[in-house]
């Protein structure tokens, strides 16, 4: 059981790292765009990636810790 929890925990950690990397990449992309509203849309996309990812990760950790 402990191995299963450790494995699931590692998967969640990896997913969180991917979410952060993608959100950071989106923000870097936004900084390269000079045209509005395109830049604002990419920033919004990055925010959604980070926050939706955080909600998913937190929910998964809730289930795992229960």
């Amino acid at each position: 059981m402990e191995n299963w929890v450790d494995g699931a925990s590692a998967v969640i950690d990896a997913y969180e790292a991917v979410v952060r990397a993608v959100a950071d990449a989106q923000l870097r992309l936004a900084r390269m765009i000079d045209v509005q509203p395109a830049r604002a849309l990419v920033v919004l996309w990055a925010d959604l990636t980070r926050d939706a990812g955080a909600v998913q990760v937190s929910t998964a950790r809730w289930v795992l810790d229960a």
Partner: protein
Amino acid sequence: MSPAHGLAATPDGRTQLHWESTGRGAPVLLIMGLGLSGGAWWRTVPVLARRLRVITFDHRGVGRSRAFSDVYTTEAMADDAACVLDAAGVRRAHVYGISLGGMVAQQLALRHPERVRSIVLGATSPGGPRAAAPDDDVLAFLRGRLRMRSEEAARASVPFNYGPRCRRDHAERIEEDIAQRLASPFSDRAYRVQLFAAGLHNCWGRLPRIAVPTLVVHGRHDRMVPVENGRILAERIPGARLEILDESGHLYPTEEPAVDAAIAEFLAARDEEDEAA
């Protein structure tokens, strides 16, 4: 002397977080709790600033900070706190968070460990299903808070925020807190999303990864965040020290003012360790 201040821009380019810096010495970042601005640290700042550079800030959507998010998580709030450190020119700081701010401090230590020298977790919770939940009266207050006017809410919160000794012997301190709170505008919207962030917060499983010196401070009569949460934090964070304040509730800096000097002592001792090393 008035504090240095500025606006910290977050990577989204549209959010600016108001921050203030007082005093000189090793930096300590203070992170405030639910719905309150950085100004709510008014009792603590002068005490810590005798030996440290004290940085406070307003969370997104609160006080003098600009912009807002519709979904809020303690992860995002920790990233905001890291941006404040950038803006203040600080690479690494002690971090002291109270209540929701303590949850953000946990996330900061986990997400940006290179930025954190030590943490003080005041009246806070690890979150998640293993945390001790507040009683039904507290939950009803938190849910009904948005239907109350500011002063009504501030007064209704007194039995939940302060322990019996402070309510009996130091009503003037409670009045000072309320006056201070009412002087800052309250954002219903920010409160709602911060409440969501606090509800979703969960660091329980990752607490053993926190690798910086940690002090956990909790009032025994805390009804907002039951004291059991302080015990869980201290048990799960390696080497953490637990200080339970026997006569205090949730807002212990008001109830037990001497605690700020003890916290300054803890932080200064960490700096002395660094210098000795």
